[in-house]
C-alpha cells in the first residue's frame, strides 16, 4: 500500500509474504537497469500447487486485451506542434495511485501534459493532477488576466485552462473551495510581486510547482482546524493530501519550445529520428538515490546528517523519491507534527494510518524534502517525432531506448494500416518503391492500435503467457512485480515544426 514497502523481496521481513504464496523461488534474477537507473526486479515463481502462470495462462487473449485497453485514450486533435496524443494506465495499487492531466492554456497557445505518481495513497496525486496545471496557468498569466481574476471576472480554476481528454476531477465541493481560494491568493500575489513577462517560462513553472506544494503543506496545518476555517471532514481531506505524496512531470509545449518540469522519478524521453536511426533523448533527471547530484544536494543542505537521511537508498530509509509534493512528515517542523498528534479533534486512528512513527527517526532540520522541479528546455526540431512521459512503473520494465524503439516501430506499423492507393500518374517503378518500403513496415503492424497500450503490453510481456501472469498476480504481492504504470505519448507535427523552424531562423 505504501510506496516505501517497495523493497527487495529477498529481505527477511518480506520474504515471508512472498513465501506464503509461492513455496520456492526457483530463479532469482534481480537486474539493475543502468540506463534508467531503476531497479528491474524480475523473478520467476514456481509453485508445486499452483500451475506456472506463464505456461498456463489463466486469462484468454481476449481478456488480456480488454484489460489492457480499459484505460486507453487517444486524442487526434492537432494543436500547435502537437499532432495527437495517446495515453494508458494500468494499476498495481488498489486504488491506483497514478494520475495524469492534459490541457491547453486558454490565453496563449501552450499545451500542458502531466503524469503524476502518488505514494502513500492517491490523495496527493489526485490533488496535484487537479491543481497543478491551473497553478501553471496562473504563473503564466499576464498582468491583465491576473487583474481580471482579482476582480472576479475570471475564475482561475476554470477559465484559464481547457482540460482535454478524460479527467477525474475532485468532487468534494468544500475542498474545491479551499483549493480555489489558495489559487486566487496565488493569483493576487503573482500580480503584486512577479507576474509573467512572457520570457521566463522556467521560473513560472518552478514557482507554480513550489506554490502548489506550499499550499498543500499549509492547508493541512492544524491551525486551520482550530481557526475554524475548515470543517472536520474537509480538514481530514487536506491531511490525507498532505501526508501522502506525489511526484510528477509536466511538459509545457508552445511553438517549438518544449519545457519539461520534473519532480521525482517520473521520466520524459524524446524520440528523435536522426539519419534513419532512432535516438532516445531523456528530458528529465530522476530525483532518487541513484542520482548522485540529488544525494549531494540533500546532504549539502543538511550537513552532518548524511548517514541518517539516506538509508537503504531511501530518504530516512523510507521514501524513494528525493523530491515530492506532500509528504509533510519530511517537511513540517517537529513541533507541528507533535502538535498534530496531540490535537484532540483528530482521533488517534486517523493518524495511525500514516504509521506508528509519524516523526522519522533523527528528524532534526526539516524540511528534508521539497517540490522544486528541475526544468529542461528543448527547442523542437523536425527530427523530434514524439515524447513519452511515464511513471517509473514503465521505466522499471523498459529502458528509454527500448521504449523509443517500440514507439517508432509502432508508428511505422501504423503508417501501413491505411490502405495504400497510388497517386494519379505515378509510374510503376515509383509505386513499387513505396510498396517495398511499406513491406518493411508491415512487419511492425502491432496488435494494439494505441501506442500507449502497445508499450504497456510490451512492458508486461509481450507474450500472452507473461502478460496474463502479470495481470493475474494476487493483490498482496502484485506490488513486488510492478508499480502502477501511466504512459502518455505525445506525437509532434513535423510539418508544423518545420514551418516554425524556418520562421525562427529567419
Amino acid at each position, binding site marked *: 500500500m505504501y510506496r516505501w514497502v517497495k523493497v527487495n523481496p529477498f529481505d527477511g521481513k518480506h520474504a515471508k509474504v512472498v513465501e506464503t504464496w509461492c513455496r520456492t523461488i526457483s530463479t532469482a534474477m534481480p537486474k539493475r537497469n543502468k540506463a534508467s537507473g531503476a531497479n528491474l526486479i524480475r523473478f520467476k515463481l514456481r509453485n508445486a500447487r499452483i500451475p506456472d502462470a506463464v505456461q498456463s495462462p489463466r486469462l484468454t487473449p481476449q481478456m488480456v486485451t480488454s484489460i489492457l485497453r480499459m484505460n486507453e485514450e487517444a486524442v487526434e486533435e492537432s494543436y500547435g506542434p502537437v499532432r495527437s496524443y495517446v495515453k494508458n494506465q494500468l494499476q498495481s495499487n488498489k486504488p491506483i495511485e497514478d494520475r495524469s492531466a492534459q490541457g491547453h492554456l486558454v490565453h496563449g497557445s501552450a499545451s500542458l501534459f502531466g503524469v503524476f505518481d502518488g505514494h502513500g495513497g492517491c490523495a496527493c496525486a489526485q490533488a496535484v493532477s487537479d491543481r497543478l496545471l491551473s497553478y501553471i496557468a496562473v504563473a503564466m498569466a499576464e498582468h491583465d488576466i491576473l487583474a481580471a481574476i482579482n476582480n472576479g471576472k475570471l475564475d482561475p480554476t476554470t477559465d484559464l485552462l481547457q482540460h482535454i481528454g478524460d479527467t477525474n476531477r475532485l468532487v468534494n465541493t468544500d475542498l474545491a473551495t479551499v483549493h480555489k481560494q489558495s489559487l486566487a491568493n496565488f493569483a493576487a500575489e503573482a500580480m503584486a510581486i512577479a507576474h509573467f513577462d512572457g520570457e521566463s517560462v522556467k521560473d513560472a513553472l518552478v514557482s507554480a510547482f513550489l506554490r502548489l506544494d506550499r499550499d498543500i503543506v499549509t492547508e493541512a496545518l492544524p491551525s486551520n482546524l482550530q481557526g475554524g476555517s475548515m470543517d472536520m471532514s474537509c480538514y481530514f481531506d487536506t491531511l490525507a493530501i498532505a501526508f501522502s505524496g506525489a511526484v510528477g512531470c509536466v511538459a509545457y509545449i508552445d511553438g517549438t519550445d518544449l519545457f519539461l518540469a520534473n519532480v521525482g522519478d517520473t521520466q520524459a524521453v524524446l524520440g528523435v529520428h536522426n539519419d534513419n536511426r532512432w535516438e532516445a533523448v531523456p528530458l528529465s533527471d530522476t530525483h532518487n538515490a541513484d542520482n548522485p547530484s540529488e544525494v549531494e544536494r540533500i546532504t549539502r543542505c543538511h550537513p552532518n546528517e548524511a548517514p541518517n537521511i539516506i538509508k537503504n537508498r531511501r530518504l530516512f530509509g523510507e521514501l524513494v523519491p528525493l523530491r515530492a509534493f506532500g509528504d509533510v512528515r519530511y517537511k513540517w517542523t517537529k513541533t507541528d507534527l507533535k502538535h498534530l498528534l496531540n490535537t484532540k479533534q483528530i482521533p488517534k486512528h486517523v493518524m495511525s494510518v500514516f504509521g506508528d512513527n509519524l516523526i522519522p527517526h533523527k528528524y532534526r532540520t526539516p524540511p528534508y524534502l521539497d517540490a522544486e522541479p528541475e526544468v529542461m528546455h528543448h527547442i523542437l526540431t523536425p527530427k523530434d517525432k514524439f515524447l513519452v512521459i511515464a511513471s517509473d512503473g514503465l521505466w522499471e520494465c523498459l529502458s528509454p531506448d527500448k521504449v523509443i524503439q517500440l514507439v517508432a516501430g509502432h508508428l511505422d506499423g501504423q503508417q501501413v494500416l491505411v*490502405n*495504400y492507393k*497510388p497517386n494519379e*500518374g*505515378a509510374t*510503376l517503378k515509383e509505386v*513499387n518503391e513505396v*510498396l517495398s518500403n*511499406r513491406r518493411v513496415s508491415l512487419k511492425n503492424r502491432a496488435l494494439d492500435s494505441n501506442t500507449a497500450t502497445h508499450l504497456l503490453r510490451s512492458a508486461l510481456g509481450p507474450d500472452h503467457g507473461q502478460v496474463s501472469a502479470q495481470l493475474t498476480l494476487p493483490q498482496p504481492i502484485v506490488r513486488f512485480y510492478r508499480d502502477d504504470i501511466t504512459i502518455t505519448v505525445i506525437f509532434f507535427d513535423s510539418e508544423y515544426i518545420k514551418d516554425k523552424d524556418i520562421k525562427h531562423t529567419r
Partner: protein
Amino acid sequence: MGTAGVKCLKITSPSIFSRRILPSTFRAAAPGYVKTRLFSTAEGDSPSPEPVSLATPPKPLPQQARVVVCGGGVVGLSVAYHLAERGWTDVVVLEQGKVTCGTTWHSVGLVSTMKATRTDMAMTRYSADLYKQWEAEGEGVGWKQCGSLNVARTLDRMIHLKRQHAVAKTMGVESQVVTPAEIQDICPVLRVDDLQGGLWIPGDGALTAPDVAMVFSRKAKAKGVQVIEDVGVEKVITENGRVSKVVTSAGNIKCEYFVNSAGLWSRELGKRTDPRRVNVPLHACEHYYLVTKPITGTNPLMPVIRDYDGYVYFREWNGGLLGGGFEPSPKPCFHQGPPDKFEFQLLQEDWDHFQVLLTEILHRVPAMETAEIRQLVNGPESFTPDSRWLLGETAEVANYFVATGMNSSGIAGAGGVGKQVADWIIDGRPSLNMWAYDIRRFIGHHNNKRFLRDRMQESFPATAVLKYPREEYTTGRKLRCSPLHTRQEVAGAVFGETMAYERAMYFKLDDDDSPENEDRRMWTYTKPMWFEAAQEEYWACKERVCLMDMSSFAKFELESASEEVVDFLQKLCSNDIDVDIGTIVHTGMQNKYGGFENDTTIARLDHNHFYMICPATQQSRAWTWLARHMPQDGSVHLRDVTSMFSGINIIGPHAQQLLADVSDISTSRSDFRPMSCKKIDVGSASGVWAMRLTHTGEDGFILYIPSEYALHVYDILMSAGKDYGVRNAGYYALRHLRIENFFAYWGLDLDDRTTPMECGRGYRVKFDKGDFIGKAALEQQRDHGVNKRFVHFQLEDYDVNLDLWPWGGEPIYRNGRNAGLTTTCGFGFALDSMVCLGFVRDFDDKGVEQILKNSNDFVMKDAKYEIDIAGTRFPAKPSIYTPKQNVTYVDPSFIPAPQKV
C-alpha cells in the same frame, strides 16, 4: 454486402471493364492483320458498367426442363451450348444476376493449351479450336493468336517445360523449346539474362472472355436453350437420390438433370440440396492483375508471357500491358460464402499484397517501370483442393452434375469442359478420360471450410509454383491418422497424404540427415532422397519380413438376410464371387463399356456376408457405384467400415512364420491358402481378419484389425519379429514391388476407360457365370480385339543415378510412332532396371485408336520401343507378363513349422 469482413467494391468509372469497351477490343482476325483499337476513351467519361443484357427478356419460368444449368458464366453457358449442339435443347440456364457477372467478366482471357496432362491439353485445345473457328466465322470473341511463351528461370522449370513439350508433341500441338536469345527475338521487351530458356507455343492466344460467354449464350439460345437472368436457385430437391426439381426465386422447375456451374457460389449451392447435401469442395481466393495505360511501342501481338518462377504472366491490353500472377501466401476470401449479390464487382485492392508480384513484373518487363497504372484488379476466383476442375456427376445425388472450380483457367477450359459434361450427361460418360477431374475423387472432409481455406495457400499458387512429381501437400495434414501413426513417427516415418489419410511413405535411414545427403532433395525430377530407404525396405520385403500400415484402404461390408447379396455382387463383378466361404477374389466391377468402375478385393466371410477392399483414393467412387446399383427393396446392406478397421500388411518370406508365432493357427500354405481369409486371434486381440495376400505379388498377409486393437497387434508383431529381421516399410517400397511385379492399380493405371481384357486380366472375367454389367462389351473385346494393351517396360541404357526419372505420363514410342503414355513408373530393384508401366495403342495417321486384333503380337512382335523423358528417348524392353526376377527365395514351406504344445 451480406458477408461480414469482406469489402466489396462496386467498380466505378473509369474502369477497364466498361461493357462499351470490352467487346470491341482486339478485333484481331489473323496474325499480321490487327484492328486493335488502342484504348483512347478519355479518362472519366466511360460510364459505370450497365451490363448490356443479351439474355432472354423476362418471361415466365418453364414448368419443367430436361436439364437445368445453374450459373450464367462461361462454363454454364458452354455446357448448355454443347447440350444443344447434341440435340438436347430442353435446357434452362438460370443466372442469379446477369450473364458473366460473377467471375467471367473480369477474366484475363488467356487460352493456353500447354497443360499438365494430355487430357488437359485435349480439352484446352478443343476450346482454342472452337474460339478460333468462331472468330473466323465473325462471331467476335476478340481472339488474337499471339502465341504464348513460357519461360524458365531454373533448370527444373526447364525440365518441366520439356516434359510438357514431349507430351504436346504426341498430340500434334505445335511447340518449340527456345533459348534465351530466341526468347529475346520473339518478345524483345523481356529481360532474358537470367533465363534458362523457354517453350514457345505459337498456336496459343488471348481473347475477350465475356464475349466468349456471349457467343455460347447466343448460339445456345438459337437452338432453343433458355437463358434466364435474375433468377437464383434456392434449392435442389431430390427424390430417391436423384434430382427431381429446382426451387428458384421465381418458381419451381421440374427437371431430370441439374448442372451446378455456380462458380464462387457452387459450394453453397451444393449445401442447398434437399434432402442430401452435395459436397462441392472449393474456396474463393483473391486474384490480382494490373493493367497499365498504353505504353508506346507495345506490340499488339505480343505473346502471352508466363514467367511462373516469378509467379507472373503478361499479355498486351489496349496498347498497355496486363500483368498478373499467382503469388505464394494468397488471400482466401468469402470464407463465409460469397455475398448473394456480387454482380460485376471486385474486391478492395491491396497494393501491399500485390507488391510481390509487382516486383517480379517489373523485373521481367523493365519497360513497365515507367508505365502508369490504369487499374489494379482484385477479382475473386474459385480454387479446388488439388487445383483441378470439378466435373461430373456427384457421389451424393444421381443426375446432379457439377462443372465448376475452374482454378483461374475457366476460359481456356470452358469449351472442353462444356463438351465433356454434355457428353457425360447424354452418354453416361465423357468422351475423354475425366478421371482426374471427376468430383468423386473427393470425400466429405474435403468440403471442410477451414481445410479449404488452408489449402488455398497451396492450390492457388499451384498454377505458377512448380510442383514436382508426387510432391505432397503441406496444408490440411494430419487429419486422418491410423492408430499406428505415432509409433511410425518415432520410427522415422516420412508421411504422405491420400484422401487426408497420413501414410508412411518411407522410414528414414540413420544417415539420411548426414551432411553428404544435404543437397539431396525429397522432390525432384531425378533420383529422390528416399531412394536408398525405399531400397532397404524393398529388400526386407523380398528377403525377410516387413510391416506396412494399410489402414487407409477403403473397406466396405455387404450383407443380406439370405443370398441376395450374392446376386447383387454377381451382377456387378466380372469375376465369379460365388465362392467358398473364406475365399478371396480379385475382381473388377465394370461399366457397360467394360471399363473399371471399381477394382476390388472381395472376401467372402459368410454365405451372406462379404468384405470388400478398395484403394484409398477411390473411397467415394467405389461407394457411389455400389450405392447406385443397390436393389431398391433394401435387401442388401452396405456399410463403409474404413474407419472401423486398421490394416497391417505383413509382407515377405518370413511372414508366414511370424504370424504363426503370434497366433494359434497354422499358417502353412496348405492350411492357410493364398487368397483365403480367416478370423484369428493375434496376441491377446480377437476378431482379426487375416487374408493371405499383400497387393504386391509377394507372399504375406493383411490383417484387418478392429482399430482399437491395432497398436497391440503391431507391438506384438514387432517384438515377435525381432529375430526375423522385421522392420517397417512404407508405400514407396510397396509401389516399387507392385510395379516390378506388374500389378496394375485402379486409380493409377486403371480407370473407367480400361477393361480387364486390356490389362491382362481377362482370366478374371468369368463369361460363363451369368450376366453382369459390361459383359457384352467385354465379349466384344474378347472376340474382336482390344483398344490398348498394358505393358511392362524396362528402360535400357538408363542410369538411375544420373538420368531424369520417369514419373508417369511419359510418351511411349513404338517403332518411332507415338503409342501412348506411361501410367506409373518405379525402379525394379530385383530386375535392376527402371520399370515403366503403360498402355500401348495403335494410332493411325489421324491419331485415332485402332483395334488390336492380336494385342500380344502387336506389342511383342517386330516392335522397338522408346520412352521419352523430357526430350530424351530411352530404349525400352517390353513385356506382357511379369518378367522373371533373379531372386532366390527361401521358400518358407520347406521350413518345419514349430511344434504346438
